[in-house]
C-alpha cells in the first residue's frame, strides 16, 4: 500500500502539479492569501525537517531558526554576489534553463552551509542529553545572529536588500513535496526505524547494534540542511533579510509546530504548520491580544492534549512500513 513505492514518479508528478498551479492558478489568487500559503509552505518545510531531529530522533533543538538564517543568508549571498551579472559572465544556457538551475544551486548552497554548521556543532554537542542540547542549539542560533550582524557583505545590522524574488508557490511546494516524500521513505523504511529506536531508548538501540551517535548526527545534519533550504526559500520570497527574523522566538515556533502536530508525525507537522501560520492571521483582529492568546494556547494545549494533534499517526499514504 502507499504510493511511496515509486517515489521518483510521485515527485515528478507532484512537481508538475505545482508548476501547473503556479502557472494557471496563482494569478487568480489574492496575493495576500498567496503570501500566507507560501508562508505555510516554508513553515511546513521547517517543521517537517525539525521533526526529523526532534520528533523522530528525539533530539531537542531550539536553534532551528539559526540554521534557517544560515541558509537564508548563504543562498541570498550566492544569488546576489555570485550571479552571472555580478561576475560579468554570459550564461551559455538560455534564460529559462539557467535561472531555475541557478536558483536550485543557491538553495543547495544555503542548505549545505546550514548542514555544515550542523555537522560542526552536532558532532560534539550530540553527546549531550536533552536539555543541554536544547540550550546549546539555542546558543548557536544566537551566535549565528551576532556573526551575521557583523558581516558587511550581507548587510550587517542594516539588513540584506536586493535579493531577487525567485521563490514562489512552485518552488516552495516542490521543495516541501520532495522533503516529505524523502522523509517518509527514509523514516518509515527498515533502516529509518533506527531513528525511532534512538528516540525510544538509546541504550536498547545501541545494544541491537545501532550506532546511535551516527544516527543522531545524521538526523541533525539532514534536518539542518532542509532548514537551510527553507531559509533560502524564505530569503527569496521576502527579498529582504534581517537578523530579527530569526530570533529565539522563531525557533520556538517551529518546535511548537512539531510538538503540536505530534512528535514523529510528518502529517502532524504539516497540519500544525498550516494551523499555526493561519491562526495568528485569523487573530489579527485581536491585535495586541493575539500573542497572549497564542501563549495561552500553548499552555492549555500541552496540558489538555499533550500528544499533539496527530500523536504518532500518519496519513496512510505517508506510511510505508509500520514501526
Amino acid at each position: 500500500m502507499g504510493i511511496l513505492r515509486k517515489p521518483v514518479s510521485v515527485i515528478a508528478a507532484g512537481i508538475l502539479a505545482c508548476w501547473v498551479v503556479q502557472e494557471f492558478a496563482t494569478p487568480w489568487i489574492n496575493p495576500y492569501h498567496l503570501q500566507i500559503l507560501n508562508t505555510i509552505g516554508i513553515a511546513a518545510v521547517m517543521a517537517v525537517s525539525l521533526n526529523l531531529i526532534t520528533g523522530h530522533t528525539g533530539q531537542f533543538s531550539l536553534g532551528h531558526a539559526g540554521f534557517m538564517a544560515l541558509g537564508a543568508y548563504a543562498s541570498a549571498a550566492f544569488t546576489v554576489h555570485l550571479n552571472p551579472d555580478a561576475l560579468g559572465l554570459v550564461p551559455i544556457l538560455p534564460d529559462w534553463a539557467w535561472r531555475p538551475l541557478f536558483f536550485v544551486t543557491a538553495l543547495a548552497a544555503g542548505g549545505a552551509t546550514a548542514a555544515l554548521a550542523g555537522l560542526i556543532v552536532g558532532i560534539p554537542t550530540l553527546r549531550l542529553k536533552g536539555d543541554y542540547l536544547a540550550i546549546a542549539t539555542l546558543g548557536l542560533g544566537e551566535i549565528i545572529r551576532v556573526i551575521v550582524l557583523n558581516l558587511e557583505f550581507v548587510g550587517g545590522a542594516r539588513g540584506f536588500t536586493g535579493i531577487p524574488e525567485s521563490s514562489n508557490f512552485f518552488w516552495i511546494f516542490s521543495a516541501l513535496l520532495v522533503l516529505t516524500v524523502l522523509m517518509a521513505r527514509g523514516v518509515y523504511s527498515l533502516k529509518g526505524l533506527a531513528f525511532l529506536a534512538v528516540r525510544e531508548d538509546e541504550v536498547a538501540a545501541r545494544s541491537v547494534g545501532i550506532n546511535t551517535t551516527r544516527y543522531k548526527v545524521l538526523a541533525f545534519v539532514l534536518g539542518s540542511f532542509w532548514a537551510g533550504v527553507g531559509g533560502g526559500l524564505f530569503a527569496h520570497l521576502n527579498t529582504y533579510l534581517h537578523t530579527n527574523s530569526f530570533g529565539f522566538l522563531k525557533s520556538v515556533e517551529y518546535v511548537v509546530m512539531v510538538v503540536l502536530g505530534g512528535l514523529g508525525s510528518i502529517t502532524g507537522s504539516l497540519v500544525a504548520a498550516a494551523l499555526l501560520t493561519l491562526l495568528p492571521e485569523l487573530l489579527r483582529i485581536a491585535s495586541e491580544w493575539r500573542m497572549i492568546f497564542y501563549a495561552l494556547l500553548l499552555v492549555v494545549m500541552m496540558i489538555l492534549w499533550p500528544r499533539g494533534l496527530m500523536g504518532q499517526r500518519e496519513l496512510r499514504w505517508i506510511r510505508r512500513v509500520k514501526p
Partner: protein
Amino acid sequence: MSEFLQQTVNGLAWGSIYALIALGYTMVYGVLRLINFAHGDVYMIGAMTGYYAGNLITRGLPAGAAFPVVLACSMAVCGVLGFLIERAAYRPLRNAPRINSLITAIGVSLLLEFGGQLLFGADPKVFPPLIPEQPLFEIGGAVIGRIQAVIFAVALVLMAVLRFIVVKTRLGKAMRAVSFSHVASQLVGVPLDTVVSFTFVLGSMLAGAGGVLVGIANPKVEPLMGIMPGLKAFVAAVLGGIGNIPGALAGGLLMGLSETYVVGYVSSTYRDALAFVLLILILLVRPGGLFGKSVSDKV
C-alpha cells in the same frame, strides 16, 4: 591597571545579578529537571513590582526604610507568582514528556512578556531612586559606587540564607532528596508537591530580588527586560553545574566578569555571543559544569 580594576568591579556587580537569577534556574532544574524559561520573566515582574511599590507604598517612609520594604514586596509578589505558575502550568504536566513541560514553560514566559506589554505598557519605566547614588570609595582609580556595593552585599546575604535553608533545614533536606529521586523520596514520605512548590517560591523570590537590585542600579524597567538576562543566567547555571548552589554563584560571577573583559579588551560587538560560546565549550569539556561533580550540594 585602574581600568582593569574598574572592569573587575563592573563584572562582579553585574555577575552577582546573573547569579541571583541563576540560582532559581538551578534549584528548579535540580528538583524538576525543567528549564523554567519563565524565570527571566519572573525577574521582570520583580522589577515591575519594585517600580510600583517604590512609587506607591514607600512615599512616606524614610529613605533608609524604602529599600528593604520594596525588596520584601517584590520578593513576596514573585514568590506568589512562582507558586501560581507551578500550580497552574507545570504541575499538571509533571509526568508528561520533558518537551511538553518545556513548551509550557515557553508559553508561560510569552504570556508574562506580552501580558506585561499590555498591562504595564511597552515604554520603559523609570525605577524610583531608593538608594542615593554616590561613589563609596576609590581604589587605584576604580570607582566603587554605593549601589554596586549594596547589590553585591544583598546578593551574598540572600545566597547565604539560601544555602542555610538548603543545607540545614528539613525542607532543604527534602529538596535535596527530591532532586536525587522523585520516587525514592516519595517512598520515604517526602511530600513532593510541597517541596516543589517551595522550590519555585524560593527561586522566584530570588529572581524578584534580582529585579529590584537591577532596577536600583539601572533605573529602567520594561516588560521584555527578562529575556536576555534570563537566558544568560541559565547559561551561568549550566556553567557552574546545574543543580549546584555555589556553582550558580560562581557561574554568574564568571559570566559577568568574562562578558565585561571581552567588552573591555576584545570587542563589544561579540559580547552577546560570548555567553553561548562559553556554554558550548564548557559542555564539551565538562558537561557537568565547573562544580558539577560534587553531588553533596545538589538541590
